[in-house]
């Protein structure tokens, strides 16, 4: 009997210890976050909170920027919807999502008085309307670029046509992104239709085309790092990719090049947005102003090789970099828009996803 009592006491002591430990952890977490300087949490595409420039921001403004890189477009909406301002202060996402973020009341208008550099970015971007609502700016453009084809130059001597994706010669040698609908958009472009407003019938055609691609797909990639490995290890010889991937491969000494095969490709214009309810709105706007400053723009270009939006970054660039980014030519983005179909919000996203999944799971 006595023994049983002791045993019970031990359990109670254990439970009390457990609860005590939980409380302690809670105190510790809230305590330290109060003690520290402002920390901005950002949910971003790979490279957008690279240490090379968050360090500079920390020195200048005393705020740390902690970025979480997404594995795919799908994660932005899901994670902000689930976590909100408790998890993130800022997001940096692509042109298909701002409308959805605004409609879902997940982001808030940006006070342009705190973002004076906004006036310096190309007029083309300031005129875009998808990231504005009722005359208020919700998204400040940051970078842009195509979804090019990256290919190994020891396999292809020049830009491969889109037809390689149908060519059995490249069976199990190619790749496309698997966690977003880029491949479905591309099928739409090749079918000569607007890739973002396809109805059921058009999507069915797109699916048929993609199923012809399927045997050639070695793996579907989700992060830039993953495709970089696939190409570096020769698992894959060509893929729909991003400029940051080509750059990383070149840095590793892998023989690669990128191009936009005719008739064109999809592309993206990325922007910073401020999550609704954040306690750090002022600091978040300071960060955005820094991100589109000449210094911030040049820094993100160095990390990602993406095209940037502020022509005032030109004096920082080498002649080669200027030529590559066409930073001196405000008309270049207008011309590029003829060959690149910018990602746009999709009404029937569920149907697009089904085509993508059918493509992925086809035999």
């Amino acid at each position, binding site marked *: 009997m006595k023994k049983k009592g002791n045993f019970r006491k031990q359990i109670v002591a254990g439970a009390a210890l457990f609860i005590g430990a939980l409380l302690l952890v809670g105190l510790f977490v809230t305590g330290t976050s109060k003690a520290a300087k402002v920390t901005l949490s950002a949910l971003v595409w790979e490279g957008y909170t690279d240490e090379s420039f968050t360090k500079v921001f920390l020195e200048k403004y005393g705020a740390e920027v902690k970025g979480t890189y997404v594995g795919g*477009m799908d994660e932005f909406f899901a994670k902000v919807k689930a976590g909100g301002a408790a998890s993130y202060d800022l997001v940096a996402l692509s042109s298909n999502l701002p409308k959805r973020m605004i409609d879902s009341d997940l982001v808030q208008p940006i006070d342009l008085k705190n973002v004076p550099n906004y006036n310096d970015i190309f007029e083309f971007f300031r005129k875009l309307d998808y990231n504005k609502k009722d005359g208020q700016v919700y998204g400040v453009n940051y970078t842009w670029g195509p979804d090019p084809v990256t290919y190994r130059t020891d396999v292809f001597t020049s830009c491969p046509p889109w037809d390689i994706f149908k060519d059995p010669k490249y069976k199990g040698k190619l790749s496309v992104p698997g966690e977003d609908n880029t491949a479905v958009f591309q099928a739409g472009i090749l079918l000569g239709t607007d890739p973002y407003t396809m109805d059921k019938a058009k999507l069915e055609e797109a699916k048929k085309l993609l199923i012809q691609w399927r045997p050639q797909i070695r793996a579907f990639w989700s992060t830039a790092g993953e495709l970089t490995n696939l190409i570096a290890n020769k698992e894959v010889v060509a893929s729909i990719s991003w400029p940051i991937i080509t750059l990383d491969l070149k840095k590793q000494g892998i023989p690669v090049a990128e191009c936009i095969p005719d008739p064109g490709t999809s592309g993206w214009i990325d922007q910073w947005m401020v999550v609704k309810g954040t306690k750090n709105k002022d600091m978040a706007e300071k960060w955005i102003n820094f991100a589109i400053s000449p210094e911030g723009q040049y820094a993100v270009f160095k990390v990602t090789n993406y095209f940037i939006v502020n022509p005032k970054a030109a004096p920082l660039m080498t002649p080669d970099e200027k030529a590559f980014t066409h930073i001196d030519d405000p008309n270049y983005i207008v011309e590029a828009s003829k060959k690149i179909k910018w990602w746009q919000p999709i009404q029937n996203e569920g149907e697009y996803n089904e085509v993508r999944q059918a493509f992925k799971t086809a035999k």
Partner: protein
Amino acid sequence: MKGRRLEFIVLIIVPILWITILEIFAYSSLLIYSFWDTEYLTIIKEFTLKNFVKIFTTPLYYGTILKTVGIGVTVSILALILGYPVAFFIAYRLKKYKNLLLLLIIMQLWISYLVRAYAWKIVLGTNGVINQFLLFIGVIDEPLSILLYSKFALILVLTMAFIAFLIIPVYAMLEKIPDEFLQASYDLGAGRFTTFWRVIFPLTLPGVIAGITSVFALSVGDFVAALLVGGPEGIMIGNIVWSLFGSAFQWTLGAANGLVLILLVAFILYISEKIAARYSGMEI
């Protein structure tokens, strides 16, 4: 008396919180969502069977669920074929290194599953260890691509990831069998094979079933291995559920897919428990 009551409250509060938050709340919201509908950005909170109709009429969903169950069954059988002999070997053939080998088997569970899956990429890749070796000894002329980004890779990685969950319960059952049983079997004229098949194996059945069940449930719910090494052939229902909860904002359809999978797994667990109960009379 007062002390007793406090004791009782403290004792009860942790499990109650645990059960309400992690079990009841989570599962009931899954259940409720699966009977709702989504339109663009709003969840329409009205009862509908639409999601289930879609799942059972679209090959993408029912096909992938069936494929996932197939993969789970394959992985469980492989784990049994490979894991049982290991457990047997540790229980009967080892003395000095018994604990060391057990520790090694348990130790792999200490290493993040993600790291282990990545390690397989290095082993199986086009420029991986196996391909390089086969090229070196001249068995093949060019790297085998079947090794990675295939169903083969997926099944291999899942089997290796979860095999410890079979080895450990089987080993525990083997350890419990008294030597006298084996002696009696030999004395009555049974050979090694008959002794194994008529005495040892039936006595380990509860362990086998517990092991297979764990391996099956773990592999059916997995999506990481599918993402890392499965390639186009290796997409599982977990991957589809994941993407439905993404920007598509098809939470209701995702919840319904999850529910169908949970019910299917629960059914299989129920059957295996029935089988286990039939043999429980043989408990030592």
